[in-house]
C-alpha cells in the first residue's frame, strides 16, 4: 500500500493481555505520514489499549512499534513525548484546579523556577492557538471550562510538547456537531503541516468524513486496513461487528393516555448554586419511552438524578405516579422504589454495583428496602437466599457466566448491565429511569437490553432513557427531549426526529429553527 519511508508509525505483532482477557492479539498495521488514520472497533475491541501502549502507559507483551521506520522502545509517556507522540485521552488528563497555562507547562517547564518561563511559554502557546484557531483562556482553572474547551487545551498541550503524531481517543463523544466541524478543520490543518493524526472512534460517519485510511479492530485483532475512499459505511460496520447488521423493523403498540410522569419548570442547582437544569418541563405517558439527548454535561444527568432523589430540586415540580417532589423535599431512593420507581444509574460500577462483591450480593442491592425483598425471603428460605435468587435472575436475564459466586467486576459490561436491569425490573416498577443503558456494552447485549426495555414499555410502563448515543435514542424512543446548557430545546415526536435535527438541537438550535428538517424526514 505504502512504502516503508512514508509510514510514520507501524505496529508489528503487538499483543497485550490483562490476566485472562486478551486486549490485543498480534496487531500489525501502518499509518502513513501526513494523514488522518481512523481506528475503529466496538467497545472493548482494544483500540484504547493499543494506543495506550503507543503512549507508554502499558508495556506490550510482545511485538514492536516502529516510528519513522525505526524500532521505538516506549516504556513511559516521556519516551513517547520524546518521539513526538501526543495523545488526547478520552478522559482528559487535566488538573482541574490548575489553570490552562499550568496544565500546558506541566512536565515541560524548562527549569526549576518558573518565574520568567511563564511568559515565554505563554507566547509559544498563543502562537499554536493562533495557527490552529484553538482559542481558550490561559489563566482560568481548567475545571471551570466547558468540556469542548478542555479538549482544545489537550490538543494544544500535545502540540506544545512537539507532537508530530497525534492520537485522538473518541474525541467527538463530548462535542456538539459544530464543535466536531471545528475539530475536523483542525485535523486538516495539522495534516497540512505534515503531522499525522490517529482518530479512534466508533462512529462510522466520522471515519468516512475525516480519514484517509482506516484500520478495523475486532476482539483485539486487526480485521483489515483500508483506504477510506474505497470502502463504505456498511462494509466498515460489518467488519466491526463481524456479521451483517439487519435493520430492525420497529413495531409497537401506541402509548396510552394516562400521564405517569410530569415534570414542570424543573430547575436544579449544584452545591455551588450553578444552575445545571433550567426550567425544564415534559411528560411521559404510560407505554412510552422518552429519550433525553444532549452532549454530556448539558443537564441530562441532573434531570435523572433529581427525579431519582439524588439531587435536590431547586424549583419546579416532579410528579411520578403518586409521588411529588418539589423544592425542599427530600425523598430517598428507598421510598421511590417502594412506590414503584426504578433507577438504572449512568455509572454502572460506580453507582449500581459493588465490583468487589460476588454477583449474589449484588443481586439484592437496592431491593433490601422494597416489599419485594420480603417475598424473596419467603421464596428462598435458608442461608443461601442471595445466591439462589441471583442464579434465577441470571437465568432469566441471560447473564453469563451464570455463576453467583463470581466477582462482579469480572463480568463484561454487557453482563453487568443485564444483571442491573434485571434486578431493577424484578420488583416491577411502574416508572423506570435509565441512564446510559448500553454504555460499554457489546452489540449482542445492546439488542437484548433494547428488546427488554421495549417489552417493558409495551406492558404500559413509563420509561425515561438518558443516553449520549444518538443512534440508541432514535432506535428506542417514542419522543426525544433535547437538552442544551441545562435548557430544553424542545421535545420531538418520532415523526419529527432525525439524527441531524437532534444534533442541531444539541448544539443549541431550537425546535422551531430546525423545523424545516422534519420535512426532510417526511420526504
Amino acid at each position: 500500500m505504502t512504502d516503508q519511508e512514508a509510514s510514520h508509525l507501524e505496529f508489528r505483532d503487538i499483543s497485550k493481555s490483562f490476566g485472562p482477557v486478551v486486549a490485543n492479539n498480534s496487531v500489525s498495521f501502518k499509518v502513513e505520514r501526513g494523514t488522518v488514520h481512523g481506528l475503529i472497533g466496538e467497545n472493548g475491541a482494544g483500540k484504547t489499549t493499543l494506543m495506550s501502549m503507543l503512549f507508554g502507559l502499558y508495556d506490550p507483551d510482545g511485538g514492536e512499534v516502529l516510528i519513522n521506520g525505526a524500532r521505538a522502545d516506549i516504556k513511559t509517556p516521556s519516551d513517547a513525548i520524546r518521539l513526538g507522540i501526543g495523545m488526547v485521552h478520552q478522559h482528559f488528563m487535566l488538573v482541574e484546579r490548575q489553570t490552562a497555562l499550568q496544565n500546558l507547562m506541566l512536565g515541560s517547564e524548562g527549569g526549576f523556577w518558573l518565574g520568567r518561563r511563564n511568559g515565554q511559554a505563554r507566547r509559544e502557546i498563543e502562537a499554536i492557538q493562533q495557527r490552529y484557531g484553538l482559542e481558550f483562556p490561559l489563566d482560568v482553572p481548567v475545571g471551570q471550562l466547558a468540556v469542548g474547551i478542555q479538549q482544545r487545551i489537550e490538543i494544544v498541550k500535545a502540540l506544545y510538547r512537539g507532537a508530530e503524531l497525534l492520537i485522538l481517543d473518541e474525541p467527538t463523544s463530548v462535542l456538539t456537531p459544530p464543535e466536531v466541524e471545528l475539530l475536523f478543520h483542525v485535523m486538516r490543518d495539522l495534516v497540512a503541516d505534515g503531522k499525522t493524526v490517529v482518530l479512534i472512534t466508533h462512529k462510522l460517519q466520522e471515519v468516512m468524513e475525516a480519514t484517509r485510511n482506516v484500520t478495523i479492530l475486532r476482539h483485539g485483532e486487526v480485521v483489515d486496513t483500508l483506504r477510506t475512499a474505497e470502502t463504505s459505511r456498511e462494509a466498515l460496520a460489518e467488519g466491526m461487528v463481524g456479521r451483517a447488521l439487519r435493520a430492525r423493523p420497529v413495531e409497537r403498540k401506541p402509548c396510552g393516555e394516562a400521564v405517569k410522569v410530569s415534570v414542570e419548570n424543573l430547575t436544579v442547582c449544584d452545591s455551588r448554586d450553578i444552575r445545571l437544569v433550567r426550567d425544564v418541563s415534559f411528560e411521559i405517558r404510560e407505554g412510552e419511552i422518552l429519550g433525553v439527548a444532549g452532549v454530556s454535561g448539558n443537564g441530562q444527568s441532573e434531570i435523572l438524578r433529581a427525579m431519582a432523589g439524588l439531587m435536590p430540586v431547586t424549583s419546579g415540580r416532579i410528579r411520578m405516579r403518586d409521588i411529588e417532589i418539589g423544592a425542599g423535599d427530600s425523598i430517598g431512593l428507598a421510598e421511590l422504589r417502594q412506590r414503584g420507581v426504578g433507577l438504572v444509574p449512568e455509572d454502572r460500577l460506580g453507582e449500581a454495583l459493588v465490583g468487589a462483591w460476588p454477583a449474589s450480593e449484588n443481586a439484592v442491592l437496592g431491593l433490601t428496602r422494597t416489599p419485594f425483598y420480603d417475598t424473596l425471603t419467603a421464596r428462598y428460605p435458608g442461608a443461601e437466599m442471595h445466591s439462589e435468587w441471583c442464579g434465577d435472575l441470571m437465568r432469566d436475564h441471560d447473564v453469563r457466566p451464570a455463576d453467583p459466586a463470581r466477582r462482579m467486576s469480572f463480568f463484561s459490561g454487557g453482563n453487568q448491565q443485564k444483571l442491573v436491569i434485571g434486578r431493577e425490573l424484578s420488583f416491577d416498577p411502574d416508572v423506570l429511569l435509565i441512564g446510559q443503558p448500553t454504555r460499554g456494552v457489546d452489540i449482542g447485549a445492546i439488542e437484548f437490553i433494547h428488546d427488554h426495555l421495549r417489552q417493558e414499555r409495551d406492558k404500559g410502563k413509563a420509561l425515561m432513557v438518558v443516553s449520549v448515543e444518538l443512534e440508541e435514542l432514535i432506535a428506542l424512543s417514542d419522543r426525544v427531549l433535547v437538552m442544551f446548557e441545562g435548557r430544553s430545546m424542545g421535545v420531538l415526536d418520532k415523526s419529527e426526529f432525525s439524527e441531524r435535527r437532534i444534533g442541531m438541537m444539541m448544539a443549541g438550535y431550537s425546535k422551531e429553527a430546525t423545523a424545516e428538517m422534519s420535512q426532510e424526514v417526511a420526504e
Partner: protein
Amino acid sequence: MDFADIPLLLASAIRLSIPLIFAAIAGLYAERSGIIDIGLEGKMLLGAFAAGAVASVAGNPYVGLLGAMAVGVMVSLVQGVASVRFRGNQLVLGLAINIIATGLTVFVGIALYARGGQTPPLPDGARFSAIAPQFSWLEGVPALQSALAGLAGGHTILTLGAFVAVAVTYLVLYHSSFGLRMYACGDKPEALDSAGVSVYRMRYQAMVINGLLCGAAGAYLAIVQGGAFYRDMTAGQGYLALAALIFGNWKPVRVLLVCQLFAATDALQSRLQGLSIAEVDVPVQAIQAMPYVLAILLLAITAGKSEAPLAGGKPYTKGQR
C-alpha cells in the same frame, strides 16, 4: 498575668510551635504529592530518639539533627515504597508507623541505656545554644527593648530553620516546576504521568523531604525541648500537626499560623494553671485539654471547604483510569 508577660508568652508559643511547624510542613509535602500521612507522630518520635541518642554520643547537636533526619528519611522511604510500589493502605501504614515507633524507641532505649526508655540527658555542649539579642540600640525605649528581647530570646537555630522551611516551601509550591508537578501529582496523578513525569519518583522525592522535616521536628523535641529523649514525648503533636495541615488548607503560610495558634494555647497552659472562674477552680486537666479541643473545633469549622489533594490516599496504578 500582666502586660509584660505577653512577649514572653509569645516567645514560648513560638518555641512550642517549632516541632508542629516542621511536622505539618513535612505532612504538606507527603499529602500534596498524594500520600496521606498519619505517620507524622511516629516519625517525629523516631527522629527524637535518634536525635537524643546520636547527640549524646557525638556530643554535638548538629550531628544529632543529622541522625534524626537520616532516620526520618529511612522511615519515610519505607512508608513511601509500601504506599507507592505496593499500593498499601496509607492510613493503616501511617498508624503502623506510629505504633512501631512507640514500641521501638522504648525497646531500643532500654536495650542501650537501661533507663526505662530514656536517653542520657544531653550536656550543654550537645544542645543548640540559645540566642539572646539585647537590642542595645533601643536603649532609649526600655519597654520596647525588653519586649523585643523577651520575644527574640531563648530561640535556637532550629526556630529559624522552621520559618525558612515555610518560606522555601511557599516558593517551591507556587513558583517552581517541582511545586507544579507535586500539585498535579496529588490532584490528578494520571495527568502528571501522561505529561511524561514519573508519579512514583515524584512521591518518593516528596517522602524524602517529609522524612528530613519529621527528623527535624523530632530533633527539636529531644535536643531543644527535652534535653533528652523521653518515651512517648510527642504526646499527640504529630496528630496536632496533621490537624493544623488540614485546617491550614494545605497552604504553607496558613499552616504556620495554625501551628502558632495551637502552640499559643499550649503556652497559655502554664499561665492559666490555678485559674478560677466565678470562684470555681478550673481543673488543670481542662486547661491541658485545650489544644486537643481546639483541634477538634477547628476541624469541625473547616469541613467542606478544603483544598485537600483530590487523589490523596489513592494508590496510583499506571495506565488505570
